[in-house]
C-alpha cells in the first residue's frame, strides 16, 4: 500500500461509527434501564389499564385507553424532569468516562480520531441512548394503544418531543460539566451543585444579609426569576404542565423547553471548545481546566462559608456574640483548604495559606462593612417628597380580620408621609431602643416598597416589637389606625357585589344551649324575610357593610389587643363574605372552568372577614332581618370573653385587687378567646 493511499483524508475525523457502536454496546445497561422504566410507565401501563378493566377511566376499553392517552404528558411533570436529570448525568458519565483514567485517556487519544471526532461521537452516542429509547417507547406505546383499539398520536408525540427536549438539555449540561473535571466522582457532584447553585446561593444570601442589614427585604424580585432560570430542574419541574382547559389538553412551558433545549446545544458547543483545549494528563484531577481552578478554590471556600457557616451557626451558635461572623470565617477557611487539597490531591497544602489569608481578610472586611452599614442601607429613609408611590404589605393592629393585613399600593401623599414616618421611627428604634413600662407590648410587620422620583425602588422589611407609649408605638398607631390606611387594607372595592356567593357569621352565642355557632346564609330559609332569594340578601348585606364602613361603624383599627376601647367596641363575631373572582391566564388556581366563546375563563373563590362592632347598625339590622341574629343568638363583646378568662384564671380574686399584669396573663395565657 503506497503512502498516498494510506494518508487519504479519513472520513472518520469528526465522527466515528465504530466508536459509536462501541459506546452503544458498552453502555447498553444505561439505555436498557432507561427504556425499561419508560416502557413500564407507558406501554405496559396502557396494556394493564385495559386488562384490569379500570372502570374509573371509562366504561369501555377504548374509553379507558383514551383516558390513559390523555394523561400521558402528565408524566412530564416531575417524573419526566427527574428521569432526564438523572439519566442525563449517568449517560454523560458513561460516554466520557475515558477522560477520568490515565490509561483509558491515553488509549483513546492515541486513536486516529481528532478531538472533535471523539467528542461528537461520544455526545451523539449519549443522545442516541436517550432519544433512541424515547423513540422505542413511543412506538411501543402506539402499538399498545393500537392493540387496545385506540391510538392517540398527538399526546404520545407531545411526550416524545418534550421529554427529548429535557434530555437534550440535561445531558448537554452534564457533558459540559464533564469537560471541567478529570474525576468521575467529581462529575455528578459538579452537575448537582451547578444545577442548584443559583437557588442555594440566592437563598443563603437572602438569609445571611438579613442579620447584618436591618430591614433587608431580600434580593429584588427580578433576581428570583433569574434564579429560577438558572435552576433548570426547578424551572422545568414547575413550568412544564399538562393542563386541561375547556376540555382541551395543552402543554404549558413549551417556550421554556425550547429555550433549555437551545441552551443545551450551546452548552454542547462550549463543551467541545473546552475539550479541544483540555490536557489529557489532567485525568484524575478534580478540576481539569487550569483557568477554572481559582474559581473552584475560592468558590468552594465562599460556598462552604455560606452554607456550613450559616447552618452551623443556626444549629449551635445563636447566642454567641459574633458567632455568625466567626462561623462564616471558620468555614470559609476550611473550605479554602479543602478545595486546595482536592486540587493538589494532597493533605499538605498549608503553603497556600497566603491565598486563604487574603480571602479571609476580604470576607472579614466585607462582613464588617455590612455590619457597620457601610452603604448606609439601614439608616436610609426616603424623604416623603422623593416618593412617587408606596407599596405596603403590613401586618398589625386589631381586631383580627381583613384589616390586620394591609396590602396596597398608593400615591396618596398623606399615606406616603405616614409610611415614611413609621419607617423613620423603626430605624430610630433600631439605633436607640426605647422600652416602655409595664408588660404591654405588641409586634407588627411592615414590608414597604417605595418607588422614588428618580425611578429607583427602595424595599425594606421589618418585623418589630414595640412597647406602649413609645415613639415607635405612636408612629405605628398613626399608620395602622389611620382610617384611610384601614380603608385600603380592607379594600371593599375588590368585591364585585354581582359575584357574591355566600356569607357566614362566626362565634355566635346560642343563649339557650350556651354554645358557639357559625351560621351561613345557605342554611337559612328566606321565607318571612324581606329578601326574595339568596342573591337579594347578599346584596343587602353587602350594601349595609359598605354603609357602616362609610359611617365609621366598621373598620376602626386598634394598635393594642388589650386596649379597653378595642375590648368594648368589637364583637368576637366575624362576618365573612364570599365571592367569585374570574381570572384568565397561565397560572390559575382554577376550581371551576367556564366555557366561553373562544376564550377561557377560570374563577376561584375569595373571601373577606370583617369583625363586627356594636356600632354596625346597618349590618346588624340585615343580619337580624335574615334571622341570623335574634333573642337566642347573639354576639358577644371581646371584653366579655376576656372577663370570663380572668374569672377562670383568678376565681377568688377581687377584680379590683388583681395584679397589674393579671389581665395580660389571663389573655396571653388563655386557650381560646373565641
Amino acid at each position, binding site marked *: 500500500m503506497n503512502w498516498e493511499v*494510506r*494518508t487519504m483524508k*479519513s472520513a472518520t475525523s469528526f465522527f466515528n461509527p*465504530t466508536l459509536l457502536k462501541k459506546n452503544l454496546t458498552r453502555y447498553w445497561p444505561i439505555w436498557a434501564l432507561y427504556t425499561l422504566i419508560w416502557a413500564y410507565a407507558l406501554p405496559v401501563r396502557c396494556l394493564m389499564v385495559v386488562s384490569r378493566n379500570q372502570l374509573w377511566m371509562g366504561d369501555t376499553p377504548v374509553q379507558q385507553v383514551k383516558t390513559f392517552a390523555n394523561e400521558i404528558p402528565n408524566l412530564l411533570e416531575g417524573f419526566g424532569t427527574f428521569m432526564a436529570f438523572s439519566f442525563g448525568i449517568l449517560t454523560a458519565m458513561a460516554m466520557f468516562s475515558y477522560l477520568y483514567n*490515565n490509561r483509558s485517556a491515553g488509549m483513546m*487519544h*492515541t486513536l*486516529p480520531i481528532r*478531538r472533535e471526532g471523539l467528542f461528537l461521537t461520544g455526545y451523539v452516542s449519549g443522545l442516541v441512548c436517550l432519544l433512541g429509547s424515547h423513540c422505542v417507547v413511543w412506538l411501543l406505546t402506539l402499538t399498545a394503544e393500537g392493540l387496545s383499539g385506540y391510538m392517540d398520536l398527538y399526546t404520545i408525540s407531545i411526550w416524545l418531543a418534550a421529554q427529548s427536549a429535557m434530555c437534550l438539555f440535561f445531558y448537554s449540561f452534564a457533558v459540559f460539566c464533564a469537560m471541567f473535571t478529570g474525576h468521575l466522582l467529581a462529575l455528578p457532584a459538579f452537575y448537582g451543585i451547578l444545577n442548584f447553585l443559583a437557588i442555594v446561593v440566592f437563598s443563603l444570601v437572602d438569609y445571611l444579609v438579613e442579620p447584618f442589614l436591618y430591614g433587608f427585604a431580600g434580593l429584588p424580585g427580578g433576581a428570583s426569576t433569574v434564579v429560577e432560570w438558572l435552576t433548570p430542574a426547578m424551572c422545568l419541574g414547575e413550568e412544564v404542565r399538562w393542563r386541561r382547559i375547556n376540555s382541551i389538553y395543552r402543554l404549558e412551558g413549551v417556550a421554556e423547553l425550547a429555550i433549555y433545549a437551545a441552551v443545551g446545544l450551546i452548552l454542547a458547543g462550549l463543551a467541545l471548545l473546552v475539550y479541544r483545549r483540555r*490536557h489529557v494528563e489532567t485525568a484524575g484531577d478534580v478540576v481539569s481546566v487550569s483557568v477554572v481552578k481559582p474559581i473552584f478554590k475560592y468558590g468552594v471556600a465562599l460556598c462552604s462559608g455560606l452554607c456550613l457557616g450559616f447552618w452551623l451557626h443556626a444549629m449551635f451558635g445563636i447566642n454567641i456574640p459574633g458567632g455568625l461572623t466567626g462561623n462564616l470565617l471558620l468555614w470559609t477557611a476550611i473550605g479554602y483548604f479543602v478545595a486546595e487539597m482536592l486540587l493538589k490531591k494532597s493533605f499538605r497544602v498549608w503553603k497556600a495559606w497566603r491565598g486563604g489569608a487574603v480571602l479571609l481578610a476580604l470576607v472579614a472586611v466585607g462582613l464588617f462593612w455590612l455590619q457597620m452599614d457601610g452603604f448606609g442601607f439601614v439608616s436610609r429613609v426616603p424623604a416623603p417628597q422623593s416618593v412617587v408611590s408606596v407599596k405596603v404589605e403590613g401586618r398589625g393592629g386589631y381586631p383580627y380580620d381583613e384589616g390586620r393585613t394591609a396590602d396596597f399600593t398608593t400615591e396618596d401623599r398623606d399615606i406616603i408621609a405616614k409610611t415614611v414616618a413609621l419607617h423613620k421611627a423603626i430605624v430610630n428604634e433600631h439605633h436607640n431602643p426605647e422600652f416602655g413600662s409595664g408588660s404591654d407590648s405588641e409586634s407588627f410587620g411592615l414590608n414597604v416598597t417605595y418607588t422614588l422620583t428618580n425611578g429607583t425602588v427602595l424595599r425594606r422589611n421589618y418585623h418589630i416589637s414595640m412597647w406602649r407609649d413609645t415613639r415607635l408605638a405612636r408612629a405605628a398607631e398613626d399608620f395602622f389606625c389611620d382610617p384611610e390606611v384601614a380603608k385600603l387594607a380592607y379594600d371593599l372595592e375588590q368585591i364585585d357585589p354581582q359575584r357574591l356567593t355566600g356569607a357566614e357569621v362566626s362565634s355566635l352565642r346560642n343563649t339557650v344551649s350556651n354554645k358557639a355557632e357559625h351560621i351561613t346564609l345557605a342554611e337559612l330559609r328566606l321565607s318571612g324575610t324581606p329578601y326574595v332569594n339568596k342573591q337579594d340578601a347578599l346584596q343587602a348585606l353587602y350594601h349595609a357593610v359598605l354603609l357602616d364602613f362609610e359611617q365609621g361603624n366598621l373598620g376602626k383599627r386598634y394598635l393594642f389587643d388589650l386596649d379597653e376601647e378595642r375590648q368594648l367596641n368589637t364583637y368576637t363575631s366575624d362576618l365573612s363574605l364570599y365571592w367569585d373572582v374570574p381570572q384568565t391566564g397561565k397560572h390559575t388556581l382554577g376550581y371551576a372552568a367556564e366555557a366561553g366563546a373562544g376564550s377561557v375563563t377560570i374563577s376561584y373563590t375569595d373571601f373577606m372577614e370583617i369583625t363586627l362592632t356594636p356600632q354596625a347598625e346597618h349590618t346588624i339590622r340585615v343580619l337580624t332581618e335574615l334571622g341570623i341574629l335574634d333573642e337566642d343568638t347573639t354576639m358577644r363583646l371581646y371584653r366579655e370573653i376576656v372577663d370570663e378568662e380572668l374569672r377562670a384564671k383568678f376565681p377568688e380574686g377581687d377584680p379590683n385587687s388583681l395584679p397589674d399584669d393579671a389581665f395580660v396573663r389571663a389573655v396571653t395565657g388563655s386557650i381560646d378567646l373565641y
Partner: protein
Amino acid sequence: MIKIDNVVKTFDGFRALDGLTMQVGKGSIYGLVGPNGAGKSTILRHITGVYRPDSGSILVDGQPVYENPQVKQRIFSIPDELYYFTSASTRDMMRFYRGIYPNFDMQRYEALRPAFPDVNERHPIRRLSKGMQKQSAFWLALCCQPDLLVLDEPVDGLDPVMRRQVWSLLMGDVAQRGTTVLVSSHNLRELEDVCDHVGILSHGRVLLQRSLSDLQDNVVKMQVVFPEAEAPQLPADLQVLHTARTGRIHTLIVRGRADEVKSRLAAFQPILLEALPLTLEEIFIYELGGEDYEVRDIVL
C-alpha cells in the same frame, strides 16, 4: 521518520521535558533509555499524539502528530499500562481496531493466531495474566500494520520464549515492511540485542543518541597492568570515564576508539593491555555518571 525539536512539557511547574531534541530514522529500531523520571514515557505520549507540548515540534514524516489522524493512523502504541474496554476480549478489540485503523489486516490476525497460542481470543482481556495481556496487545498491534510502533516497556511480563517470539515478529515487520520501532525499556541487555539506534535521556533532555555500533565504538574498556603497582599519571586529554583496580589489573573506561586509546596507553609500556567492548548497560551507567547519576557505594 520522527523529528522532535526542542520540546518542552511542564506538569504543575515540573519540567518533564526540557527542550528535548531527537531524531529516529525510518525503518530503525530505536531504544530509548534513561533513568526513572527522565521523561521517556512523556515523550512517547507526545509522539503518539496524546500530550500537547508546551513548545517545540514533533513531526512524523514531516507532519505534526497532535490532532492529525492521517499521521496517527500510521502509529500504534503499546503503553506500559495497557487499557482495554471493560469486559472486552481480544476479538472485541480486534473488531474495534479494525474499524479504527485503515491498515488493519484480518488475514494477518488469523495468521498470527498460532504465534500466541495461549491467548483465548474470546476471553475478557482483563481476566488474562499480565503476560497474556501483553501478547494480546502485540497480536493486535501487528495486525494494525503501523508504520511506527511505539512501545513502552514492551516485553515486561513476557516469558523468555515469548519475548523472543515477539521480537522475532517485530524484526520481521521491520525487515519486510520497513516499520519503525521506538522502544523504551530498562532492559538494556535486550535492547542491545535488537536496537540499531539508542538515545539516552536524562532530566527531560537527550544526553546522546547514536547508532549502537557508534556508541560502542566510541567508548572502550581497557584492562591494563602497568610495570609499577600504581598507575602512572595518564595524559589529561585522555577522557577516562571510570577507573577500577583489582590487584594489579587496572580497568579503565575511556572515551575514544579502541585502537587510538590502545596506542596511547602502549606508551606506558604496560605488561598487559587489552581492549574489551562495552555493553549498553555499561555505557548507560558510565555516561550518566557525568550527569550525577552514577552507582554509589553506600556503606550500611
